[in-house]
């Protein structure tokens, strides 16, 4: 029987893409207001504000930890603020900070915010940052290692070990794009792609083409958290956190906990099982799989870990259209980094926010009818960690 402690009751999001004139402050204020309104509470009830850090630095970071957000949105009863960052895993770590605030008993509602404007940096600045962020500055960057090369290497190793084909990797991009085409805020909402488009795009880091690598974008989202007890009495549509599981692997891939690139599910599966177990549910109970992979190979590895398919066979599942809109296993319904856009530490936020929308029945054209339970994940670094949560719009006491 699940014992949900916390719930998310509202979300906000802005369009993802290239918006240089829209500051990160404007993004943060907008998503905060939207999330509070969506939660159906007064801004005066927000007791804590947690923000993820802006990647690559910004005046925003100092402003936020100096308390700008509660003042700007008029959260006059706010008692505490914090900035939490763990890269792509920040949707998880900010949530943990929010839970700590709620556990203190001092506050009833916590607002969690992410905002990012990459377009203020030049292409060269971004390339430099993501070379040294994705690779070890002392041991890898001097060799010309890049994020894309890391993903390419992992893809090559995974394919050679499992027999997964490049067409199957490309199929992940197409599936993500098909979902993104249903999302009003997705960077690539108006740009459908085919398998041939993905395979024929420019070779960036063999075996990955440009369309298999994600594109940095401006964007942001927010959500409002409360305790499950308060949420139960809430008039809206609370989404409960039913079970969670986490693990950390490495800073550099040379120290990954599981060495065989075809068997990373051995690292990724145990925390997924713990999340299912805590929720009292299994993979067969999931209506949606909100996977954040960032690169197609990681999405396949996560699918390998979830118990819906024999490890190493996820590529065939995707290729058969089973994860696409209308498929048996709706997966990543906002298209995540590859289709929605890569907002730095915000991809996990966009996946979480979409998870909540789906379970609230607010996902519009992407809505999976009657969705009750799903599993979502995020992870950061150079594939350093993984965090799962099983979410539901009810607490499955009856199970």
């Amino acid at each position: 029987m699940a014992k949900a402690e916390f719930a998310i009751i509202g979300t906000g999001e802005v369009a993802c893409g290239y918006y240089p004139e829209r500051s990160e402050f404007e993004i943060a204020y907008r998503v905060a207001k939207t999330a509070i309104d969506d939660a159906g509470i007064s801004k005066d009830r927000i007791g804590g504000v947690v923000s993820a850090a802006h990647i690559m630095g910004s005046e925003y970071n100092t402003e936020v930890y100096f308390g700008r957000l509660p003042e700007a949105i008029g959260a006059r009863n706010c008692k505490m603020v914090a900035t939490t960052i763990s890269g792509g895993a920040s949707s998880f770590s900010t949530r943990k900070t929010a839970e700590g605030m709620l556990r203190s008993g001092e506050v009833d509602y916590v607002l969690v915010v992410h905002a990012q404007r990459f377009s203020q940096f030049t292409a060269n600045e971004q390339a430099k940052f993501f070379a040294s962020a994705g690779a070890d500055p002392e041991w890898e960057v001097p060799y010309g290692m890049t994020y894309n090369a890391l993903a390419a290497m992992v893809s090559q190793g995974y394919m050679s070990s499992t027999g997964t084909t490049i067409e199957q990797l490309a199929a992940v991009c197409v599936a993500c794009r098909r979902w993104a085409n249903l999302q009003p805020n997705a960077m690539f909402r108006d740009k459908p792609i085919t398998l041939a488009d993905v395979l024929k795009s420019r070779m960036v880091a063999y075996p990955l083409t440009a369309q298999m690598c994600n594109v940095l974008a401006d964007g942001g989202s927010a959500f409002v958290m409360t305790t499950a007890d308060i949420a139960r009495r809430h008039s809206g549509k609370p989404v409960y956190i039913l079970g969670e599981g986490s693990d950390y692997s490495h800073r550099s891939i040379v120290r990954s906990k599981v060495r065989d690139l075809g068997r990373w599910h051995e690292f990724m599966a145990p925390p997924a099982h713990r999340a299912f177990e805590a929720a009292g549910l299994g993979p067969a109970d999931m209506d949606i799989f909100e996977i954040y992979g960032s690169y197609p190979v990681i999405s396949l590895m996560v699918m390998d870990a979830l118990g819906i398919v024999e490890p190493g066979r996820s590529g065939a599942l995707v290729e058969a259209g089973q994860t696409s809109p209308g498929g048996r296993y709706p997966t990543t319904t906002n298209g995540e980094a590859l289709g929605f856009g890569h907002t730095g530490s915000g991809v996990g936020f966009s996946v979480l926010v979409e998870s909540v929308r789906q379970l609230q029945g607010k996902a519009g054209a992407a809505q999976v009818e009657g969705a009750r339970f799903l599993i979502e994940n995020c992870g950061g670094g150079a594939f350093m960690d993984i965090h799962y949560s099983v979410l539901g719009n009810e607490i499955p006491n009856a199970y």
Partner: protein
Amino acid sequence: MPTETTTDGTGAQAMSARETLKQKLGLTDADFAKPLPQPTAWSKPFWDGAKAGRLLLKTCLSCGHVDHPPYPFCTACGSEESEWRVASGRGELQAYAINMHSVPVPFIEDIPFVLALIDIPEGPRLISNIVDVDFKELRKGMQLEVVFRDAGNGFVLPKWRPNRAAGA
């Protein structure tokens, strides 16, 4: 599989390619400076060793664990007693990528080049380049040997090439 393109290597051609890039991207020569290691107190012996043509690995005197990258204390047992031992110089390719586009500016003139995940018999694995290789030969299990390549400013980077004697 991309095929290796041989760069002409004449100064005149390299300069003109760079000048085109500088104009197109608004760059200066400083932007093309290769990033170099910034050694720490606990990693300096590795780079000093590379400069002397030796691949050194930090080995714990308490438990025998070999740490790469090195840290101040043994990551297995926490001991601070260690010594730097010369590695065999042999390696085995586990996985690779070939950077062909969208690389940081200092590496634009080097594309295409190979990044590899390499296991060495002493235990650790490394990220490095594989040089002097026909890309079509690259495969998991390929036997490699270390070579030392000058990186400028007093740095030498250990890199790898096919070990023909070992059947690569």
